[in-house]
Every structure is written in structure tokens, then in C-alpha cells.
């Protein structure tokens, strides 16, 4: 098992506003999550390096989404500890943005793309207040960054899957966080959206932000991500894509589903040879 050396630097409370590269944006220690007496995520240890694009891959039911939700306190964990920027999630919520799976919400909801994006600002706006013009403009800027400014007033049901995904990303961008957790942003999107998301991820990285992305397409892992986490209930391997994304590790993650692996294995062999 490959585990990246953890940076146990203690959190400097004064450095909340400026990202400190010494403090890992996400540190997970011995995290175990269970549903109905059965563990779904088992004993995870991981420390994410700052300013990288990190993918979580693994077969269906490997606990990828659950791991993400457990980090965000959306599902209770049985044991273990999760720290964001060296602090509990409650204390640094504003620095973390979460993009749930697109299919987790009902897109018939009577709101526009701009309304959904503005939801990323609700925390800033605060209780009881209505969304004022400066906030609407901020939301519009976020939509513009994902190339959706022209669709701001469109009811979300009328958007295509890729466009809906971009609206979700815009909502996270509006939060202006330092760490982005994205659950399957590439699932069921068209080629143009995929390009837009990749471009956005690269922009985030150049701005020194970190993104952790649940990913399903093994073909593109090497191309898009710096780091990879191979997950199948337990953490099979984690670390830089170059050293960790090997045929052997994939086999240990995905088990006997060889037809899929041969293809990717051939690519890996072709690239290293």
C-alpha cells in the first residue's frame, strides 16, 4: 500500500485567508464509514497535497461518493478523523466547495441557472435576506467562467446534462473556496462540457487551488490528474499518477474485470515503453 507522507503540520489559525502550502487541504486518518452494519469505506488514510488535481477512482460501489460525503459530515462516520486545512470541517466550511452528483437533485425544480448558481452565495448573504444585485452579478460571473452566461435565465429543466453539470460547477465557483470536492462531474456530459471542465480544473490549479474529483473514466486519468486515489472499500493505493496508476494497482482495485483493464493496461504499457 502506498501512502503519501503526511504533513502533520499543525494549523496556524492566522493563516485562514491565505492558503498555506504546508497545511494539507484534506487529511483523512483511519476513516471508516458503515451503512446498515456493513462497512462501505474502510480505514482510509490519506493526505492531499495542496494545489493539485486529485482523482478518486474505483469500481461501482467502491465507496467513492461515500468517502467524499463522509469527509463533509453528510454521512456519519464510525471512526476516524477528517481535517480540512488542519481544522475541523465546521471551522473551515467557507474554504471548501462541494459539487454533488448531478443526478442527486430534481432538475424540474422551478429555478433558473442563475438561481442555482446564487445558492453558492447564500451563506454569504445570510439568513432572511433576499438576493441583491451585487450577489446576482457575482453569480453571473461564476456562470460566465463555465461558459453559461447566456443561459443564466434558462429554467434548469431546459438545460442539457452537460449544461446542468456546468451550472453545478458555477455554484461551487461562486463559493470562492480553496478546495473543491466534485462527485462525478464528467458523468454523462458532452465533449464540449468535458473540455470546459478540464480547462476549469487547470485554471483552479494555476490559482493554487486543490480539486478532488470522483472519476469513472480510466482512459483520461493520466491526462487530467496529478494524483490518484485507488479505492475499493479500502484504499488500494494513492500518490502521484505517474507512480500509482499502474496496471498492477488497477488490477488490485478492479479485481477480475479484465476486458476493461487490458485496454487501459495496453495504453499504460504503450506510454511507458
Amino acid at each position: 500500500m502506498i501512502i503519501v507522507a503526511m504533513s502533520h503540520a499543525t494549523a496556524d489559525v492566522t493563516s485562514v485567508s491565505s492558503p498555506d502550502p504546508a497545511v494539507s487541504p484534506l487529511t483523512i486518518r483511519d476513516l471508516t464509514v458503515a451503512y446498515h452494519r456493513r462497512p462501505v469505506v474502510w480505514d482510509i488514510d490519506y493526505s492531499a497535497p495542496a494545489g493539485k488535481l486529485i482523482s478518486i477512482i474505483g469500481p461501482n460501489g467502491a465507496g467513492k461518493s461515500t468517502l467524499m460525503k463522509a469527509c463533509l459530515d453528510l454521512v456519519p462516520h464510525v471512526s476516524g478523523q477528517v481535517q480540512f486545512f488542519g481544522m475541523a470541517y465546521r471551522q473551515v466550511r467557507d474554504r471548501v466547495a462541494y459539487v454533488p452528483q448531478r443526478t442527486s437533485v430534481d432538475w424540474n425544480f422551478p429555478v433558473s441557472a442563475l438561481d442555482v448558481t446564487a445558492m453558492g452565495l447564500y451563506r454569504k448573504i445570510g439568513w432572511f435576506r433576499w438576493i441583491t444585485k451585487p450577489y446576482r452579478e457575482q453569480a453571473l460571473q461564476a456562470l460566465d467562467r463555465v461558459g453559461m452566461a447566456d443561459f443564466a435565465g434558462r429554467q434548469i429543466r431546459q438545460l442539457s446534462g452537460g449544461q446542468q453539470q456546468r451550472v453545478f460547477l458555477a455554484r461551487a465557483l461562486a463559493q470562492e473556496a480553496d478546495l473543491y470536492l466534485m462527485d462525478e462531474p464528467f458523468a454523462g456530459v458532452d465533449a464540449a462540457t468535458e473540455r470546459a471542465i478540464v480547462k476549469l480544473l487547470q485554471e483552479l490549479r494555476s490559482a493554487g487551488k486543490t480539486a478532488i474529483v470522483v472519476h469513472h473514466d480510466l482512459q483520461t486519468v493520466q491526462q487530467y490528474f496529478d494524483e490518484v486515489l485507488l479505492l475499493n472499500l479500502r484504499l488500494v493505493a494513492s500518490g502521484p499518477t505517474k507512480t500509482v496508476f499502474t496496471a498492477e494497482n488497477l488490477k488490485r482495485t478492479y479485481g477480475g474485470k479484465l476486458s476493461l483493464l487490458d485496454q487501459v493496461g495496453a495504453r499504460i504499457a504503450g506510454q511507458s515503453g
Partner: protein
Amino acid sequence: MSTVRHIQEHFPLARVAIRRCWLLDRFGLSCGRAARFLPIKTLVPACQIGHINCGYVLFFLALLLIPSGSIAYGAESPSTASNLQRVLFLQEAQTRIVFLGTTLLGICGGLVGVFMLLRKRALIGDVVGHAALPGIAIAFIICEVLHPGGGKNLPALVGGAFLTALAGAVCVMLIERYSPLRSDAAMAMTLSLFYGFGAALFTVIQRIPTASAAGLSSYLNGKTATLVTADVWIFGIAATVLSLMTLLLWKELSLLCFDEDFASSTGWPVRFLDALLIGMVVAVTIVGMQTVGLILVVAILIIPAVSAQFWTDDLRRLMIISAVLGAVAAGGGTMISALAPRLAAGPVIVLCGSSLFIVSLLIGTQHGFIWKVIDQKKLQRRIRSHDLLRAFYERVESAHSGGDVSEPQLIDTRLTTSDLLPMRSWSLPELKRAISQGMSSKLVETVAEGGLQLTPEGAAQARRAVRNHRLWELYLITYADTAPAHADYDADRIEHILGPDLVHELEQRLFQADEQSVPASPHALNPASPSDT
């Protein structure tokens, strides 16, 4: 501004109305915007004074003046006309009180109902209503034990109803969260359990010798006609508080209903908001129970919200329309039941709401049935004419052995029905129908000896139809996994949907694949290359 002052001096009530408009403004709902989705502006002459829309002032004036002005009419006669007049102008104090109470209830039911519906808990109102029954019974028994004969203590009964109703709602939520049962099963379970318990307690009550349980049945069926001023005060305060809460919390509640996980991850107290929403539903139910009865109370919450969905896709408008529909249904129902003395108001209110629902279902501007049918017909016509034009184009294309067919070439060709018949799998009557439709929209014209010829407009449309069709076909094959979400075959310009770069790519591919050409786009496009994106 002098007009405003003039109105204020001469009509004391206008001051109230103007202040209300001003309040509307303060809520961030500028009258100009509000008027766009309320038909008021079209009903009353609109004029703008300062930032106050006079249309609104007049509307509220009318609302306030009708009851007060009508008192002056006085003299009653037994004829139907005067009976109608008596009710419509709210001449009796009792009718006025009942009208006001039910209208307020309608408004707050409409507002709270929107979020209940969006939270996908439409039936929780029903559960809550039924779960109130044992509370009423228990409160009655306790009061009866403490003070024999004094069982019908309204605050105690309402309190008891509130407690068990809340218990019912919490029960549903707990079952949903901690058991594998689905929510419909959880609701059915809770509803029957609580109602059964309540019904059993009622049989006990009937055996208590000192108790007069007669009035209790009014909670089952409502007792609108006998509402007294004190009741309406409670109604009014509760309804106003609930409406204000919904308006103040719409942002938080909509986030809860749309994306609970995201709300929770950004730090909103999701469980508290959820409990608050349930509490509001319980409150509306308890208040509404006295009007329409606990069995029909779910209608007050659901019907306006469901009807409003046919008119708009915007949450803010949805709330306003739902409140208006709720008010109209409740107020109208009260009026009608006052006209016919033996008609209980509760069911009439529900029927009124239902007729508003049917109207919305049919002619609602956003999702009304009639518009769907009309759209469907339009689409059929379009497809039929596209079929004809494509058949024409393909026939000419095969004669020219492939290659792009220009518009002059298309216009110059004359075809007969027997030329076109084998081009598609259509029967002769179908083809003739398509031709006559094409002629009426001036796409084709007949020439001598039964020949057909495309008009210049028809030729241009034929090229466009063929182009769109071929590109869509290729797109669906190439991007089979993501295509259906995008497909809009009816769109005039495929570029609008897929973007110029993708269309360019498709054109290249189509050319390479089977050397079939696509008619060039009839629109001037900036030459887009894939690297543009």
C-alpha cells in the same frame, strides 16, 4: 406626488393601500416586476407616481372599498338578486368575518404548500390532518375530567391537535430515516395508526355522560359558517405569521428542497429547516381544520401550489400565483356557500380550488394542456412539410447523381406526385395532404399538367431541412451516449443547439464517411474551427 396626496386626503383607506404597495416595494418585489406576472396591471389603468405603481393602489382600494362601501346599500329584500348583492358585497358582518378568515387561510396555505410540494411531501398535510384527531379527543377527555361539561375548550383542543399532528409528522420522518420503508408506506402507516386511535377515542367520548360531543364533529368537516370574530383573529395572526415566515425564508427553504446535501455542506441547519417546514405545515393544517375539516385540509395546501405550477417555472412567481389562487379559491368558496345556506363552506372551497386547478391544467401559460396540443399540431405540420421538402430535394439530388443541389436547380425541377411517392413510405392521401399543406404555406406550387415546383422559399427551406436532418442523424450516431439530451430536431439552426465547432466537425465527418455532402448553411456563420472553443 400631488395625486397621491389628493387620494390620501379624500380616501382615508387609500393611505393603507399606498403603504401596502410601499411594503411590497420594500420586499424587493418592485411593482413593475410584480405587475408583469399579476394581471392587475391589465385590469386597472396603470400609472406611475414616484416609485409607486398606481395600478396597485387602485387594486387595493377596490379590495378595501367593496366591503365598506357596500354597507351603505342597506335595505334587504328577500329576492335572489338582493341576496346575491348581499353576499357579494359582504353586507353581513358574519360573511365579512368568514370571508376574511378563509382568504387569509388560502394565502398562507398557498405559500406553505409550494414548499411542501417541492419537498416532495405532498401527502404530509393529509397525515398531519388525520393525526390531529387523537389530539382533539385526548384534550377533550382531559378537559372533561377536570371540568365536567367544559370539554370544548378551544385553546386546549387546538393545542392537543397541534401536538399529535406534530407527532404524526415526526413519526413519518423517523420511519423514513431509520427504516427501509419508503415514504409512501411510512405515511400510509402513520395516517391510519393515528386516525384509528382518534376514532377509537371518539367512541369513548360519546359514552361520557356529562360530555356534549356534538361540536367536536366540526373538526372533521369544518365549521366555516359559524366562525366567530375571535376565531378569525387567531386565523389572521397565524396566517400572517406563516406567510411572513415563508417569504422571509424562501431562500433557505428553496435550498433545502432543491439540494439538501449541498445545503448541509455549506453549513445550513438542514434538520432545523426541515422541522420548521413541517411545523409550518402542521400550523396551517390546524388552522385550516376549523374551516374545511381535517379530512379536506390537505386540499388547501396542495391545490393552489399544484395549479400554480402550470403557470410558471419561477419559484418567486410560483409563490405569488399559488397565494393568489389559494385566496381566490377560499374566498370564492366562502361566497358561494353563503349564497346557498345549506352548502357547507369547506367542500365548496375545495371544489372552487379544484375548478381553478382544472382551468390551470387546461390553459396554464407554461404547461397548460391546450398549448401542448397546439405545439404538437405545429410540430406535426412542420415535420410533414419537412418530409415533403426533403423528398423533393433527394429526388433532385439522385437525378444529379449526388453533390450539393443549389436553389436554382431545385426551383427549376418539376416533379409529379408519382415521382415523389416512392421517396418515402407514405400513402398517396398522406402525400397529397403534405402537398396541399405545402401549397397553403407557399412552399410548393402547381404548374401545368399536375406538375409540382418549389417556390424560392420552399427551395431554401428544403436545403435547410436536409442539412439539419443529415447532421442530426450523424450526431446521434456519433455521440450516442450524450446525444438525446441535446437533440432538438425541430430547431431552425442546428448550430444554435450544438455550437458551430461541433457542427463543423460533423460536416467533415459526414463528408469523409460516405462522401455525402450537406447543403451549406444558409446563414452567414463566422468560420468556426474546433480550436475556437
